[in-house]
């Protein structure tokens, strides 16, 4: 049991943004703003050189974390949405056909729909299992017609399904694979080069425990993509052309240095995990036994991330979420989670679900408190 001074962790909205963060994150951001100062690569005085070192160190730490040896192929962005837009707006579509998983977020679907409207792109869904897992043995059906790109949300932000990336890449062969790793980065081991992943988008503020406003894009073949924005890079300043070399090609403008200091601290000080995978499984099993609850999760336990959703036969998700909050202080996210495609696949569109997203900071008592609160709200 928790001591009187240790507050129960009732924040279960970690798929929106993780909280709490390691204390070093705020400390490093404050240290940059109050003591370090300086820009990145724009000057040569001690402050800016120190900042440049810190930014490059962060790039190297993040590259190592995701299984990338060429850190220059990793570009800082504001978030995963920015990284995905960078790819989609700069990709040379020739066949004008893109394949997506059934569980894509609007970070992918909205830019694709704009491209569909403006450039005639067609978007098709990969064959999928009922929980949204890509049916890898049937991928060939979707590739009967040529495709430019395959996009897969590594971990669904609705039911937590983890997609078999290496197997998907093996099956699609030379067709480039863009992975949306917004939910999985930090909480699930990634080995991008080993899996042959072509492109991957990250956010710093979820499983990596950095601040909002930080993210990254990995490109195995950066020559294929045009920059999304142009501007100053601190290099080739005599030219009006964007540099073609890396990482400058994709990093116009001063980066979010305070955020990158926070992200570096988060990468250096990841929180210890206070619960076991079995605790999540036990929670899922317990909730599935509650009469009137329907739990949306991965069918294969080995492919379950640290989040899932549920609906109730007694009240809509907004009412359920409000009661969890008002009566038990439990914070969740209800609705469509910016992923209407996923909800359509699951059959929960347009009503949505209540989403539970754990963090390493949750211990068994926190999880038990959540389980009991859900039971009480359901009236069981």
């Amino acid at each position, binding site marked *: 049991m928790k001591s009187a001074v240790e507050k129960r962790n009732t924040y279960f909205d970690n798929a929106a943004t993780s909280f709490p963060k390691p204390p070093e994150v705020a400390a490093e951001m404050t240290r940059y703003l109050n003591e370090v100062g300086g820009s990145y690569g724009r000057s040569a005085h001690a402050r800016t050189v120190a900042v440049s070192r810190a930014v*490059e160190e962060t790039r190297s730490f993040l590259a190592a974390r995701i299984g990338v040896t060429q850190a220059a192929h990793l570009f800082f962005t504001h978030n995963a949405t920015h990284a995905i837009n960078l790819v989609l707006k700069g990709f040379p579509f020739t066949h004008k056909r893109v394949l997506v998983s059934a569980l894509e977020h609007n970070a992918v679907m909205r830019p694709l729909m704009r491209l569909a409207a403006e450039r005639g792109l067609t978007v098709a869904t990969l064959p999928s299992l009922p929980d949204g897992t890509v049916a890898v043995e049937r991928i060939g059906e979707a590739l009967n017609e040529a495709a430019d790109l395959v996009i897969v949300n590594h971990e669904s932000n609705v039911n937590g399904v983890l997609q078999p990336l290496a197997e998907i890449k093996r099956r699609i062969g030379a067709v480039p694979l863009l992975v949306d790793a917004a939910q999985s980065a930090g909480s699930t081991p990634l080995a991008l080069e080993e899996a042959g992943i072509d492109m991957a988008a990250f956010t710093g503020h979820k499983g990596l425990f950095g601040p909002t406003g930080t993210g990254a894009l990995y490109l195995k073949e950066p020559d294929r993509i045009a920059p999304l924005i142009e501007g100053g890079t601190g290099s080739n300043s005599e030219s009006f052309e964007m540099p073609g070399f890396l990482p400058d090609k994709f990093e116009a403008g001063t980066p979010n240095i305070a955020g990158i200091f926070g992200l570096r601290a988060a990468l250096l000080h990841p929180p210890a995990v206070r619960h076991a995978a079995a605790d999540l499984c036990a929670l899922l099993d317990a909730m599935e036994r509650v009469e009137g609850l329907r739990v949306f999760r991965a069918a294969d336990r080995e492919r379950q991330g640290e989040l899932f959703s549920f609906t109730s036969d007694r009240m809509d998700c907004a009412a359920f979420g409000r009661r969890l909050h008002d009566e038990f202080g439990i914070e969740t996210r209800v609705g469509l989670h910016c992923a209407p495609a996923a909800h359509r696949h699951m059959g929960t569109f347009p009503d949505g679900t209540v989403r539970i997203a754990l963090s390493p900071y949750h211990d068994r008592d926190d999880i038990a408190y959540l389980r009991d609160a859900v039971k009480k709200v359901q009236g069981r």
Partner: protein
Amino acid sequence: MILFLFESTHAVIAAEKICVGAQIPCAVIPVPRSISSQCGLCIEAAVADREPVAALLRESGIIFTIHEGYVK
């Protein structure tokens, strides 16, 4: 002194790390205007360290050029 010039800040910092790791004295300085109108950084080292530094950079796959005869 001798200057090692690079395309990007990323490469400058990587090169500095390599020099420090090899215990070769170096300094990150602005690229002199007489060399380039760019606003970038470069690495200053002793003439005697030209070959050891160049070998380490080549080994690491870092693209660079050398400017000799630089006087502070």
